[in-house]
């Protein structure tokens, strides 16, 4: 018997033992499992057909409504942009989870056993690749449909995007096994290309041929190349599976239950904590920077160090600045304020990590000789300055989209920045759902009354602060919004 066959046999034996162990502990009978599967398939088919119907109706509606040149151009470019975003997301998610991972139990009992890890990890690899292929393909098909592509082109486009998504999984697996930064560089590269395309759309510098060619030999050749790349990289990844270190497999395995637990309680801030903590854990050491001012300014200075240490917390808002300008180019009018507000709010989340740590750690606040509001205000200073600067940078977009003077546009931009940072403060200082208090009955069982509201957290404040700017005259709107922002910030910073 060859060595490989022997290893496979050992893995089979281990799996058999696990199955045997589980057999006596099954919670479902076969009939119950079949019944649940039937319900799941029926629900999938029903919801799927509803989704297809909605997409086709949207396609007709968007085709009829989108008549201006800019809108048509954006619609033509949308599949390419969304396809790029899909690939960047796929790479990011693959890197976050491994992509190869094992549960803590498998990591402890099976991965540590002296067996070939390839047969152990192969099902996971095939499953992950299949999910990336299917999700990537379906999303691309939806976007292609909304863009009004012919059916054959939609199919070819979907298969091409799906193949690239599959390649991102294989590439990330090879990087996981061999080390290096190829997957990270690829993520930034793809994101950079998407961003450049949006900038080109804003600047109206676009190629004449924007829609994909109709299905032809070019597509066949492209698909053959994509298939070959996927096959070769897949073969390489499978060959590298045994080289993946146990620690790296366990890292993703620990992340999944943590994130599922946080998602089950809809505690998005906890997800933020988990991801931030994991990111810094991977970095392990930093070049310490000493000195700096004393008193509350010591906290502010640490935030400046953070900007230096994590440039992406500034790069992301700076890159996202293009979105309000895109809105102005598309002619959405006052909707630019809404778009800028949401973009500013989401961009500010990465800047407010210190506020989040102070809000969830009373022991740390107790070490500081300030009132709690003073400590929170100190950690909000740098994010506020960055966001107000960011808001001011959106002023040209506001000026282009709305009939305002430059002065009013600057005021609106600054107020939008303030709204974004106050909304981020609301998100960061929120308390987790409290399961000790009376629960509300729901189809999913008893849930805390605040559970579903937690999804709207931050957006509620954003709507409150943007409404005066959208409803009143610019000068009055800015004034009312800033007064409201001051009141909300005061309440949030003083919260016990």
């Amino acid at each position: 018997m060859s060595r490989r066959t022997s290893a496979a046999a050992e893995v089979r034996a281990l799996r058999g033992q696990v199955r045997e162990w589980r057999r006596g502990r099954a919670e479902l009978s076969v009939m119950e499992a079949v019944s649940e599967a039937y319900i799941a398939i029926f629900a999938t088919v029903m919801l799927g057909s509803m989704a297809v119907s909605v997409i086709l109706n949207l396609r007709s509606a968007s085709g009829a409504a989108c008549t201006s040149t800019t809108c048509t151009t954006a619609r033509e470019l949308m599949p390419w942009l969304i396809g790029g975003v899909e690939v960047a997301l796929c790479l990011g998610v693959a890197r976050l989870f491994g992509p190869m991972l094992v549960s803590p139990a498998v990591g402890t009992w099976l991965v540590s056993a002296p067996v070939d890890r390839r047969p152990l990890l192969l099902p996971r690899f095939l499953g992950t690749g299949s999910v990336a292929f299917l999700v990537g393909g379906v999303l691309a098909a939806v976007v292609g449909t909304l863009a009004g592509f012919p059916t054959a082109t939609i199919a070819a486009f979907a298969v091409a995007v799906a193949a690239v998504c599959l390649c991102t999984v294989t590439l990330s697996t090879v990087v996981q096994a061999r080390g290096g930064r190829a997957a990270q560089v690829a993520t930034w590269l793809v994101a950079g290309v998407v961003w450049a395309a949006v900038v080109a759309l804003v600047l109206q510098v676009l190629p004449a041929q924007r829609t994909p060619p109709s299905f032809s030999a070019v597509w066949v050749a492209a698909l053959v190349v994509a298939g070959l790349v996927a096959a070769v990289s897949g073969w390489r990844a499978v060959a590298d599976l045994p080289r993946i270190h146990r620690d790296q497999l366990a890292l993703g395995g620990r992340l999944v239950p943590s994130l599922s637990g946080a998602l089950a309680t809809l505690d998005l801030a906890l997800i933020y904590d988990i991801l931030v903590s994991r990111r810094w854990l991977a970095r392990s050491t930093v070049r310490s920077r000493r000195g700096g001012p004393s008193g509350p300014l010591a906290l502010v200075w640490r935030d400046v160090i953070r900007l230096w240490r994590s440039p992406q917390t500034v790069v992301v808002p700076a890159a996202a600045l293009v979105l309000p300008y895109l809105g102005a180019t598309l002619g959405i009018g006052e909707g630019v304020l809404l778009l800028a507000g949401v973009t500013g709010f989401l961009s500010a989340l990465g800047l407010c990590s210190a506020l989040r740590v102070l809000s969830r750690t009373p022991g740390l606040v107790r070490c500081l000789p300030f009132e709690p509001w003073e400590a929170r205000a100190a950690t909000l200073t740098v994010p506020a300055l960055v966001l107000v600067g960011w808001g001011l940078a959106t002023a040209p977009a506001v000026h282009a989209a709305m009939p305002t003077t430059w002065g009013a546009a600057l005021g609106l931009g600054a107020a939008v920045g303030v709204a974004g940072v106050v909304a981020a403060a609301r998100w960061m200082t929120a308390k987790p759902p409290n399961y000790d208090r009376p629960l509300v009955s729901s189809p999913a069982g008893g849930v805390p009354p605040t559970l579903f509201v937690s999804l709207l957290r931050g957006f509620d404040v954003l709507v409150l602060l943007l409404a005066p700017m959208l409803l009143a005259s610019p000068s009055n709107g800015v004034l009312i919004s800033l007064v409201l922002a001051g009141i909300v910030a005061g309440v949030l910073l003083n919260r016990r």
Partner: protein
Amino acid sequence: MPPKPPLLRVRGLRRRFGEVDVVKDLDFDVPAGKAVALTGRNGAGKSTVLRCVTGADRPTAGTVELDGVAVDERSPQIRRDLAVVMDDMDFFPDLSVVEHLDLFAQAHRVGDPEAVVDAVLAEVGLVPQSAQLPGTLSSGQRRRLALASAFVRPRRLLVLDEPEQRLDRAGLDWLADRLAAEKADGLGVLLASHDQTLVEAVVDNVVHLG
């Protein structure tokens, strides 16, 4: 000359959770330059008393006074006088060990903070880990960092909840020496502990709960 009032005075302390009195009618003092230990089985209420003393929890009844002033956690003066190390201590994930201690020292406007921090770092044995992020420290090292955070700042009363947890033998010996030095400097020490050796080595008065 009237006797000097105690640094910390606790009178009639009561903390009720639902129908259960976890702590009832508790009186004790912590004079300056003395150490008091709270002992008792798990669940006897040691941490609850410490939480009430530091203002982290509100007693159902009774008073807690530091130098004759009711303890309120929100008061910056109380935060300056009380150095507290409890289980709810956590750290910024993106600041190194030495940056944390620098932050605490600078926040308290300590003169020559770098020298103070370097001395405490050497004392707690975390010099090799000074550039590490807290998430990468072992549980014992994290405990040392938490204790160090109390020693880099000015204080009048040190409140420690089971400080012996996760410390090795050498760490326990260092802790006993350090607490003795705190007393010698005229500071008060209040700790909850299960470690009989530490209690016998440091403590002047034991309050047994439960």
